[in-house]
């Protein structure tokens, strides 16, 4: 096909075939990243050994605290220990360094190659991340979850709570990906965006409640945090896992998902708009 023919409207059948080829290509890409990640499977073993040890340390810390009281800010001992233990699940299933990857390619070369691929930069990074997270789910989340279970039985856990946690975490994965991507593409303008990477730690540890339950903050701060979309990254999913919301009410869960999806759509529009504007600033040979 000549180049000028690309601009002609194609018959419906050809367009459908084109879409099929694109999805095939993305699936191949997914398999490629899966194989690539499997080359480094030893890193998963670290989780199996080290994270249960971290859980034991958390348990030792809170045993002393709960010796004098039954609940702390509405959390039972098992809920509190699992809250801190679950922060590791955030790193398995949600956390990414997409911003850092993009910035490094802009600064040290390699971005020009990324931009001439037949997929958008966003699709490329997302497929890579999904492959990574699928492996993390199988080789890290499930075994470590079971190890945590052996260390401290989760008396609060229900099947519905776990299912809702996983669904909300999948949405959180997309939300955090878009956020990181947004920070990453700022490198087209500023080259070094390590400040944005540092900002991510504030978002995760403070605004999403990964380092500490939001209930520990003063009331005024809590009101602000609950109004922001970052609570969906960790705080909201983990409340379902810990049974701190009525997990039998699927209608309420649907409303939560709808709110989360609305934030996702807004973030996607913002990312797309920013992507178009920032990429114009890119000059090969190191930005």
């Amino acid at each position, binding site marked *: 096909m000549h180049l000028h023919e690309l601009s002609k409207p194609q018959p419906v059948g050809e367009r459908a075939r084109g879409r099929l080829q694109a999805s095939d290509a993305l699936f191949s890409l997914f398999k490629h990243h899966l194989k690539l990640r499997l080359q*480094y499977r030893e890193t998963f073993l670290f989780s199996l050994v080290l994270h249960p040890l971290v859980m034991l340390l958390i348990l030792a810390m809170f045993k002393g605290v709960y*010796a004098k009281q039954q609940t702390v800010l509405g959390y039972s001992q098992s809920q509190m220990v699992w809250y801190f233990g679950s922060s590791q699940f955030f790193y398995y299933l949600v956390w990414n360094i997409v911003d850092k990857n993009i910035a490094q390619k802009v600064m040290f070369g390699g971005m020009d190659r990324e931009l001439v691929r037949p997929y958008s930069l966003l699709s490329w990074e997302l497929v890579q991340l999904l492959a990574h997270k699928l492996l993390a789910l199988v080789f890290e989340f499930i075994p470590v979850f079971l190890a945590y279970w052996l260390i401290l039985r989760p008396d609060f856990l229900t099947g519905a709570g776990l299912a809702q946690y996983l669904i909300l975490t999948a949405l959180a994965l997309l939300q955090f990906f878009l956020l990181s991507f947004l920070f990453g593409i700022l490198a087209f303008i500023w*080259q070094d965006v390590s400040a944005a990477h*540092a900002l991510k730690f504030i978002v995760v540890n403070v605004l999403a409640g990964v380092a500490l339950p939001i209930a520990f903050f003063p009331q005024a701060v809590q009101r602000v945090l609950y109004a922001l979309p970052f609570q969906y990254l960790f705080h909201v999913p983990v409340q379902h896992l810990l049974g701190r919301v009525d997990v039998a009410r699927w209608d309420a869960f649907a409303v939560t998902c709808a709110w989360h999806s609305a934030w996702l759509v807004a973030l996607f529009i913002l990312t797309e708009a920013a992507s178009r504007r920032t990429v114009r600033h890119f000059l090969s040979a190191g930005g």
Partner: protein
Amino acid sequence: MSAAKQAPRRTPQFALLLAIDLQMKLKRALAFRLNFAANLLISLFYSLVFSLFQFCVYAGLRGYPGWSAGEMLLFQAVLLFWTGSVDLLFGGVRDFIDLEVTHGNFDRLFVWPPQVLVSLLSRGTNVQATATVLAGAIGSGMMVARLGVHLTWSKALAFAVFFAAGLIFYLALLVVYSACTLFMVKMERLREVFDRVLFFASFPADLYAGAGKAALIVAFPLALWVYLPVQALLGRLEHFAVLSVGSSISLLALAVAFWRRQERRYVSAGG
């Protein structure tokens, strides 16, 4: 002059290499001024927020046994000083070895004049942490004055010894991390665990029940980072605390032995 007559080339000292790296990082940071300024502000803000929410935990748990609010503020200030100091001196070491090994550039460290480990540990300074160090130092000084702590030479010496031993223990962990990177290449998980370790050090060891406290002081001396230096300032050190200095040195020796073993097994292209 023939090569034989040349004076043997002195390998630069570790401290000198650190200073050179810091100077280079500062120059590089000034090339990206906006990012540098934002980074300074964010790292200072994050450190302050981190200290603040440690205080929220203190309030939420209705205090820690044996710690007044003022003493906890001193603890937070020393925590700020500690995190800033390790970040300033070694904050970029993990990034450095990750990049070198992943992109196959690690071999060049073998042809540099200093030993590989010395080169590695002296290439990770982070100039952005300066603001945190200053904030921690000023905060610690203010709290020592407000609490009316009578600062004697012996207390200052004990603080310095425990702080230095804490740095030695941190170096031991960094060496283990680097040695593992040589054969595992991707180290994301260990990075996260590394960061979680700091989390446990940010609470007084008195909070841990049973043998937990002894383990944190002697076996895996996380207490060296903040708890023991603060206890030294407040003049209420446990007798067995000195064992932590010995264990930090022993752990560094073990870590270096592990590094040497991995270094011998390293065959380039990811080990």
